[in-house]
């Protein structure tokens, strides 16, 4: 029996009534006999700035454009309306249909149960007679959406009414779509905190772990955090306000809060004068506890800082503590303490002051992190916050704080309720098995057979498409498991998605062998209805979330869910989810255990296979002119005269490779050649590499040099060697070495990549290098590959690999390479003195090399170098004196910031753990086996060079001062000269420098010296800290010497 329009209008607010009028108008235009929910929807969509429309736009799937989807929706509504029978009589407004009226009634009930807020409700009640509660637009729309016909129409248009409802419940993020990228505003697929089982109920602020009490441990709560006391206040307020008792978790609903905070503050500051009053208060408390029939009383003791402040009376506090302890013992089942501390320190202080409190009070510390801005305007300033954040109030103002605990607790209640109510249901579901229940629901939920057919067709199509190409998997079992899971998920989600349901039902019918197909199909489902992705792990209770309140109040609640159930609407099955969540669990766990591990291994092995399989390439032999072995040899030894064996080996390898014989291993004979230069003589290696670059590619520009060992070194020093190196800004800061090399290579394929200290390379570089050797393609960090044909790789390492001949067996070297590498380029100075007793007895020229360090730095250990890596060097440097050690350190950089010298040296060896260096060693060996030629260098003979240098200098000295002087050469000076001559490209550069600069220095010194001819002690020293200003040509030594 239809209701007259006038009657229905009375139940609605003005806004809603206007909408109803529109609906009636629509029905009238179409000359329908009744105004149904569909008319209402049509009218609602047509309204300017319609709530429904904006909600829809927020609930759109991303698969289609919102516009198109709206178009579809309009069409669907239109078609459905067309199907309705039209009548002839048009004299009066078509009356409201029963279904629409039911919807209005429903929303009325809903609104009555859940007023937007309590006060509003009060006012409402006072102003109006209780019988006519006018339905607001929002509730009106919500209940219309519940109508099965309406939700079917929306479903046809690709919307799901549940989503739209959520969108309506949640206020829009931003009214105008200012964020063009946003696509759609947030779909509030909410979930309950802690729903995943591990953490029970952790609301935004904090959860009150009441259950803890039942478990017997730590039920009394101490909130710790800067904003803990705010949180506490908020909690207390919310509990007090909640006189109805329906916001707290079921098991403790009806709990009350007694705040003794003020009494405590008062009592303590008064200095214990009023013990009696306080005692009274406690007695009252005790009585109250005794009387209390509910689950218990929360006693709020407020902020602990009151108790540990400076000017509190200790007696008073200890009285208080003992009283509280007594109470707690007396009413262990009924009483909870709640307190707050602004920081852990405060807590520690109070615990320290009252020993035993921690145990007696059984405090459980709960960290509070969220900050509630004291500035009330935080929210109001921002136009967004109010609507944007459902709990906007939560952190904006303390007064709003009441909302979150309420809502959270509400949801908890609901869960409990659900659990209680649907234990039966679970049992049934479990017994019946998922498939049957799916079928059941399917028939329940698909009111129109037409619809079901449609879905069937669709699903079958999908199965078909999936059919081809998929072979039967042997993992049927595993898949079945999976399928079951998915099925369950779908089943529980099904009230929201008809597609899912129908598909699930199809799979149920289908055969066992098709399991894997079905799985595929089912996997498709999520994509199909995107919005349906209710993130099952997050949201085991999607529907519960719908009914979670916004920052206003909940539209649906415990009761609404239950009544809805009674009505047999879609909500019914949703409430079952919590249970299923539980019984799904073990299986999923199982799945989980198996997947990550195996996946990981699979990955790595397959990569290896791929790499090794791609190891064959087309041969492109003699595109290069075959170089004359001799010419290469000559060019190399011109640069580095002292490494005969090495130059020979290199030249041979070059000519061999270029002659097309390729490498001695591997089948590809590409244009690339690779070397490892092992052993000492860093500069020698570098020089040879440059020479090789010039010989092979005609220009020094084709040398790309990267020192892998120094990469990551932080502060530039004054090392001579550093200054030699080109510092590419690009390297070191922005890109990884791999990317750097790759970018260089892609710009300049014809080049020689010179990688120093390859043993210290990071794993990425190592991998890339190995890969490049195997396949001729160098991958960068993102996996893009650059061809390395025509590239020469030269990798150097201090470490000699395998059974290659040991480097210099010989004994104590006075000048080790480390020492020379550590040379710093300082200005030099000549000091001429007259030392009385030094009046030389001997007629011989005296030369003394002064140094603070003992001479045999680390050389003893040197021969072990090939055995182990840096640890040994490290030890050796530790043995040596501090200065030498420092010098060494700067060279021995293992990706260590240099400032970390000193005491760290000792444990350094420990933490660059063995496994790592072993690994590197293994890699290096492997790498060396792959290269075309392994070249072992001999140590540079610094000793003889030193001798020669000293001789040259003393010659100069003698020439100027005569033979009667004692020449003292600072060790550092010598090291510096050695390093310079080692570095210099020119032959005889050192001799020339001595002749010119030192000689001139001596004679100037003699002229200037106050002792004139009588100076008999000449010192050649460095000026530490004074950087060389001007360098002599051809050698990096000062162009003049200070006096």
């Amino acid at each position, binding site marked *: 029996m239809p209701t007259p329009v006038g009657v229905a209008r009375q139940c609605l607010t003005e806004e809603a009534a206007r909408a109803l009028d529109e609906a009636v108008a629509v029905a009238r235009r179409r000359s329908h006999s009744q105004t149904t929910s569909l008319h209402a929807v049509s009218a609602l969509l047509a309204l300017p700035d319609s709530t429904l429309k904006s909600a829809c736009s927020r609930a759109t799937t991303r698969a289609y454009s919102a516009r198109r989807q709206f178009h579809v929706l309009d069409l669907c509504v239109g078609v459905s309306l067309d199907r309705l029978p039209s009548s002839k009589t048009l004299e009066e407004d078509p009356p409201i249909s029963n279904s629409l009226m039911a919807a209005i009634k429903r929303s009325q009930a809903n609104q009555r149960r859940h007023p937007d807020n309590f006060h509003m409700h009060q006012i409402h009640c006072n102003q109006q007679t209780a019988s006519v509660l006018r339905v607001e637009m929002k509730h009106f729309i919500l209940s219309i959406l519940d109508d099965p016909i309406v939700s079917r129409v929306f479903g046809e248009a690709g919307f799901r009414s549940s989503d739209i409802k959520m969108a309506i419940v949640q206020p829009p993020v931003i009214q105008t779509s200012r964020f063009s990228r946003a696509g759609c505003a947030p779909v509030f697929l909410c*979930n309950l905190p802690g729903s995943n089982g591990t953490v029970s109920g952790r609301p935004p*602020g904090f959860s009150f772990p009441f259950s803890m009490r039942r478990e017997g441990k730590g039920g009394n709560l101490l909130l710790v*955090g*800067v904003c803990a006391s705010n949180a506490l206040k908020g909690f207390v307020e919310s509990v007090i306000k909640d006189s109805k008792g329906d916001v707290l978790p079921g098991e403790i609903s009806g709990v009350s809060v007694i705040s003794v905070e003020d009494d405590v503050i008062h009592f303590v500051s008064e200095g214990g004068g009023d013990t009696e009053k306080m005692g009274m208060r406690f007695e009252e408390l005790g009585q109250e506890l005794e009387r209390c029939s509910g689950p218990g009383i929360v006693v709020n003791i407020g902020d602990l800082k009151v108790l540990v402040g400076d000017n509190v009376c200790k007696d008073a506090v200890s009285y208080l503590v003992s009283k509280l302890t007594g109470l707690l013992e007396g009413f262990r089942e009924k009483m909870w303490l709640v307190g707050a501390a602004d920081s852990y320190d405060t807590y520690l202080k109070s615990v320290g002051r009252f020993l035993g409190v921690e145990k007696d009070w059984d405090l459980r*510390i709960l960290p509070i992190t969220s900050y509630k*801005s004291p500035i009330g305007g935080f929210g109001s300033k921002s136009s967004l916050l109010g609507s944007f954040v459902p709990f906007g109030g939560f952190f904006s103002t303390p007064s709003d704080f009441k909302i*979150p605990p309420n809502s959270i607790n509400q949801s908890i209640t609901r869960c409990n309720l659900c659990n209680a109510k649907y234990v039966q249901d679970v049992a049934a579901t479990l017994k019946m098995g998922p498939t049957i229940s799916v079928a059941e629901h399917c028939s329940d939920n698909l009111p129109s057979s037409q619809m079901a057919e449609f879905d069937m067709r669709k699903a079958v199509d999908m199965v078909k498409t999936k059919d081809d190409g998929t072979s039967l998997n042997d993992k049927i079992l595993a898949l079945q498991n999976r399928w079951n899971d998915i099925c369950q998920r779908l089943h529980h989600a099904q009230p929201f998605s008809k597609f899912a349901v129908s598909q699930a039902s199809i799979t149920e019918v289908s055969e066992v062998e098709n399991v894997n197909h079905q799985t595929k199909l089912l996997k498709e489902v999520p994509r199909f209805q995107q919005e349906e992705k209710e993130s099952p792990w997050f949201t085991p209770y999607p529907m519960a979330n719908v009914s979670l309140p916004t920052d206003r109040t909940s539209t649906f609640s415990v009761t609404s869910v239950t009544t809805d159930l009674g009505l047999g609407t879609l909500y019914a099955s949703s409430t079952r989810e919590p249970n299923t969540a539980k019984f799904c669990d073990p299986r999923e766990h199982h799945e989980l255990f198996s997947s990550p591990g195996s996946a990981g291994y699979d990955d790595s092995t397959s990569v290896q296979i791929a790499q090794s399989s791609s190891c064959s390439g087309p041969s492109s032999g003699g595109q290069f002119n075959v170089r004359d072995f001799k010419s290469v040899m000559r060019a190399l030894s011109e640069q580095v005269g002292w490494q005969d064996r090495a130059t020979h080996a290199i030249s041979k390898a070059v000519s061999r490779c270029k002659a097309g014989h390729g490498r001695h291993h591997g089948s590809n004979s590409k244009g690339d050649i690779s070397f490892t230069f092992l052993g000492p003589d860093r500069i020698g290696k570098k020089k040879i590499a440059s020479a090789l670059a010039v010989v092979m590619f005609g220009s020094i520009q084709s040398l790309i040099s990267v020192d892998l060992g120094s990469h990551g070194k932080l502060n530039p020093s004054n090392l001579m060697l550093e200054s030699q190196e080109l510092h590419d800004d690009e390297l070191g800061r922005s890109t990884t070495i791999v990317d750097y090399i790759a970018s260089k290579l892609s710009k300049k394929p014809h080049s020689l990549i010179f990688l120093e200290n390859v043993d210290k390379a990071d794993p990425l570089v190592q991998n890339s290098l190995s890969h490049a050797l195997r396949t001729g393609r160098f991958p960068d960090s993102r996996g893009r590959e650059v061809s390395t044909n025509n590239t020469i790789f030269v990798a150097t390492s201090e470490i000699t690999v395998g059974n290659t001949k040991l480097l210099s067996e010989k004994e104590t070297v006075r000048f080790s390479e480390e020492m020379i590498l550590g040379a710093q380029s300082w200005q030099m100075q000549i000091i001429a003195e007259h030392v009385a007793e030094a009046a030389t007895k001997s007629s011989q020229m005296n030369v003394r090399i002064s140094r603070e360090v003992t001479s045999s730095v680390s050389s003893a250990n040197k021969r072990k170098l090939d055995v182990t890596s840096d640890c040994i060097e490290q030890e050796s440097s530790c043995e040596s004196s501090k200065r030498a050690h420092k010098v060494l350190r700067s060279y021995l950089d293992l990706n260590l910031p240099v400032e970390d010298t000193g005491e760290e040296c000792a444990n350094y060896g420990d933490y*660059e753990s063995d496994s790592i260096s072993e690994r590197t060693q293994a890699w290096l060996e492997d790498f060396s086996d792959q290269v075309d030629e392994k070249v072992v260098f001999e140590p540079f003979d610094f000793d003889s060079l030193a001798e020669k240098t000293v001789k040259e200098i003393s010659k100069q000295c003698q020439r100027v001062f005569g033979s009667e002087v004692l020449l003292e050469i600072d060790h550092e000076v010598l090291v510096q000269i050695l390093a310079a001559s080692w570095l210099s490209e020119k032959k005889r550069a050192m001799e020339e420098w001595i002749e010119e600069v030192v000689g001139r220095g001596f004679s100037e010194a003699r002229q200037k010296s106050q002792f004139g001819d009588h100076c008999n002690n000449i010192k050649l020293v460095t000026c530490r800290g004074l950087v060389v200003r001007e360098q002599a040509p051809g050698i990096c030594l000062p162009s003049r010497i200070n006096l």
Partner: protein
Amino acid sequence: MGSLILDALNVRVQGQGEKVLVFAHGVGTDQSAWQRILPFFTPYYRVVLFDLVCAGSVNPDYFNFRRCTNLEAYVDDLLNILDTLGVDRCFYVGHSVSAMIGILASIRRPELFSKLILIGASPRFLNDEDYHGGFEQEEIESVFQAMEANYEAWVNGFAPLAVGADVPDAVREFTRTLFNMRPDITLFVSRTVFNSDLRGILGLVKVPCCIIQTSKDVSVPASVAEYLKNHLGGENTVETLRTEGHLPHLSAPAMLAPVIKRALSR
């Protein structure tokens, strides 16, 4: 639920090794931010990577505006992931907000973490009476307003600022991941972060921490690292990187990786 969280948050486990190393990214990035330092660790550790639920690479539908109002939600996620993977002890490397998350997680489950490495961490971004967090409330408001008004412009301005060092690659990368985030989520998470205050609870952390701080960071003043060192309850060290910016793992990976490595082995 387990596999779902792993799927949803794109959890990946890489590398060989006994020990587990967890990398957690900060706001505005996703797990790809660790890409450049990953190779340094995969040979020696089982590396766990995941995305925060607010990351752009996670389906935004998973982001629940009601759940994520404070950091506890993220802590739940982290602990869930670790539990699901069966990790019973791990090293944790957290950047920015994830450093906070790590701190909270280690309070809740101290036995799970053998060491926290906190990059660009701050217990509190806003200034207070005797605390210099680097931001004033008003500044933050204006930043939020800027985000609201024009996200694109804000990102383009903010990314270079945050990266600090002149590294176009890193800026590009950060811009990309920032854009991947839905603007409302970015804003929401930023608010959450700026509203968090961990100062009071630092003492509850008993796990040793290594605080890695760049020499200049727009978001975290140098004093904060000291503050953390002095207030965290475990044994703490501070490492200063000689580079600039809030995202050293993007801008100076080669510098950061050895420092992390060293911190791990101590």
